[in-house]
C-alpha cells in the first residue's frame, strides 16, 4: 500500500470516528458544532497520560481508555446545561464550548501551551482501522436497539416520543455523552497515530467539517456518517488527482470551492442527507413491512 493512500485511509478512519461522535446526538435531533472541543479533550488527555517526559508515562493500552472515560465524563456533565438549549441555541452552545476548551488548553503550561505536546506510543494504521470498524459496528448495533428507535423517534417528534414512553431527557443526555466519548476516542487515536497533538489543529473548521459529514451523509441511518466521511475525505483528493493528471491547475486549486458548492447542491437534491431509510429499503430490495397508511411512508 502506497504511503499516500495509507495517509488518506488514516484520515478516513479518524473522520469516520469523529463523524459517529456527532452522529449519535444528531440522530436524536441535536446539532453538535463543538466536535473540536471533545477531540481536543481526548487527544490531550491521552497525550498527558501517555507522555513519559511531561505526563504520567502510562502505556497506550491504558491511556486511550482513560481518555475515552475522561471525555465521556466531561460530556456527561456538560450535557445537562447544554441540553437545556435547543435548535440554534444548541449549535451556539456547543460551538462556544469548543472555543472555551481551545482557549483553556493553549494557556495550560503543563500541556505544552501553544507548542502542543508529544505522544510516545505509536498506533499503526491497522489498529486504527480495527477500532474504526468496531465503532461503526457499535453504532449500527445501537441504532437497531430500542434505544436507537427512541433516538429516531425523538429526532422525528419529541412530544410524540414522550407520549410513547421514551425518557427523552435521559436518551438525549446519553446520546450526547456517548458521542462525546467517541470523539474523545478519535482524538486519542489521532494523538497516538501522529505522535503529536496541537490545539490549533482542532479548530472551528474541523467542527464545521464534522457536522457537515454527518448532515450530508444523513442522520437517519448509521450509514450516513461513513458515507459523509468517505465523501469529504475522497472528493477533494479526487479533484487534486484529476488536476494533476490532466494538468489543469484550477481543478487542484479550486477543489475546495467546488467542494463547497457540491455541498450546497447536495442539500438541494437530498435535504435529508445522502443515505436515508427509504434509500436503504430500496437498495435492500423493497420494504419488508408495508406501512400502515400511505401517510406513514416517507
Amino acid at each position, binding site marked *: 500500500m502506497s504511503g499516500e493512500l495509507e495517509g488518506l485511509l488514516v484520515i478516513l478512519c479518524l473522520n469516520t470516528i469523529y463523524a459517529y461522535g456527532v452522529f449519535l446526538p444528531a440522530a436524536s435531533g441535536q*446539532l453538535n458544532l463543538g466536535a473540536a472541543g471533545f477531540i481536543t479533550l481526548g487527544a490531550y488527555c491521552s497525550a498527558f497520560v501517555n507522555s513519559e517526559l511531561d505526563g504520567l508515562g502510562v502505556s497506550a493500552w491504558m491511556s486511550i481508555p482513560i481518555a475515552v472515560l475522561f471525555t465521556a465524563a466531561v460530556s456527561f456533565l456538560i450535557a445537562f446545561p447544554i441540553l437545556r438549549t435547543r*435548535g440554534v*441555541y444548541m449549535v451556539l*452552545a456547543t460551538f462556544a464550548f469548543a472555543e472555551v476548551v481551545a482557549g483553556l488548553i493553549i494557556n495550560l503550561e503543563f500541556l505544552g501551551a501553544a507548542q502542543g505536546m508529544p505522544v510516545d506510543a505509536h498506533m499503526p494504521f491497522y489498529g486504527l482501522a480495527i477500532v474504526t470498524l468496531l465503532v461503526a459496528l457499535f453504532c449500527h448495533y445501537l441504532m437497531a436497539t430500542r434505544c436507537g428507535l427512541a433516538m429516531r423517534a425523538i429526532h*422525528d417528534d419529541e412530544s410524540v416520543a414522550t407520549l410513547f414512553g421514551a425518557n427523552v431527557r435521559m436518551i438525549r443526555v446519553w446520546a450526547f455523552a456517548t458521542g462525546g466519548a467517541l470523539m474523545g476516542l478519535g482524538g486519542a487515536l489521532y494523538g497516538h497515530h501522529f505522535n503529536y497533538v496541537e490545539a490549533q489543529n482542532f479548530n472551528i473548521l474541523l467542527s464545521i467539517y464534522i457536522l457537515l459529514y454527518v448532515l450530508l451523509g444523513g442522520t437517519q441511518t448509521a450509514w450516513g456518517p461513513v458515507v459523509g466521511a468517505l465523501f469529504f475525505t475522497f472528493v477533494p483528493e479526487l479533484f487534486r488527482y484529476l488536476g494533476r493528471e490532466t494538468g489543469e491547475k484550477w481543478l487542484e486549486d479550486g477543489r*475546495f470551492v467546488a467542494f463547497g458548492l457540491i455541498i*450546497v447542491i447536495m442539500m438541494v437534491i437530498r435535504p435529508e442527507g445522502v443515505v436515508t431509510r427509504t434509500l436503504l429499503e430500496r437498495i435492500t430490495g423493497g420494504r419488508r413491512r408495508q406501512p400502515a397508511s400511505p401517510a406513514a411512508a416517507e
Partner: protein
Amino acid sequence: MDVLLQQVVNGLMLGGVYVMVAVAFTLVIGMLNFLNFTIPALFMVAAVMMWAAMAGGFGADIDAVLDDVLGAPNKWIAGVIIALVVVSLASLVIERFTYRYMKAKYGDATEHALPLVSSLGFLIAFEHLVIGRWGSDPLTIDSPFGNASFHLGAVQFSIPQVISLALSLAIVFGLSLMLRKTRLGRAVRSIAERPDTATLMGVDVGRIVPVVYVIAGLLCAIAGILFTINYTTVDAYIGDKVATVAIAGMVLGGLGNVWGAIVGGLFVGLLEVLSIHFFGASIVKVPIWGMLLLILVMRPTGLFGHTAIGKGKF
C-alpha cells in the same frame, strides 16, 4: 488610568465592527430562525475586496485603470464599491440556496440543519475562492488615512476609527428606524412573527426575504470594509476569527433584538480588548466564549430579550 481609558476607547472602536456583524446575524435569525454562517464569509469577502482594490490584488491591468480613474490615494473608493456590489450579488445567490429550500418542511432538527449546512458550504467555498486567488497568508495595506488622530486628554482617538464607529452606529440606528417606520420594516416584522400569516396579509415573502439578505450582507460588508481600513491586515480566515465573535455579542443582546445586538457588540469589543490588556492575547477566547456559554445556559433570551426565538422582535 490613562492606559486603561485608552483600552476602553479601543474596545469600543472594535465593538463598532462587531455591532454591524451582530446586527446582520440578528436580522436573519430573528426573521427566519436561521444561523447564517455565510455572514463571516461575506465579512471576509468584503474585507479582502477592499484590500485587493487598494493593494493592486486584482492584477496590474485593473490596478492601472483604478490609478487612472481615481488616482492612487483614492483607490479605497473603488474598494468600497466593489465590495458592496460583490457582497450584494453573493447575498442573492446565498438566499436562493438557503432560504428558498428551507420553506419545504422536513423533520424537526433538519428543518434548521438544511440552510445551516448550505451556509457552511458557502463559507467553505468563499474562503477557498479567496485562498485560491490570494493565498492564506496575511494581506496588509497602508492605511489610506495614515495615522490621522486627535487627543482628548491623554487618550488618543484615531480619526478613521471614530468615523467608523459613528458610521456603524448611524447605519444601525437607521436600520432600526426602518424596521419600525417603513412598509418594508413592517413586512419584515410580520414575517418574523409568522410567515404564513404574513403571506395571508399580503406580504410578498418571496420578495422581502432577498431584500433582508442583501441588507444583512451589506451590513457585514461595511463592517469588513471598516475593518480593513482600521486594522490594515486581513486574511482568508478573518471571517472565522472576527465575525464569529459577533455571535457572542448577538446572543448577549438576545437573538433577533437589534438594540441588544448594539449593546452586545460594543460589550464584546470591550471585553476582548480589556481581557487582552489584563490577561494577554492567548486567553482572549475564554472570557468571550465562556460568557456566551453561560448566557446560553442561564438566560438564553439574552440580557434584554424576553420573547421566544422567531416570535416578533426588532
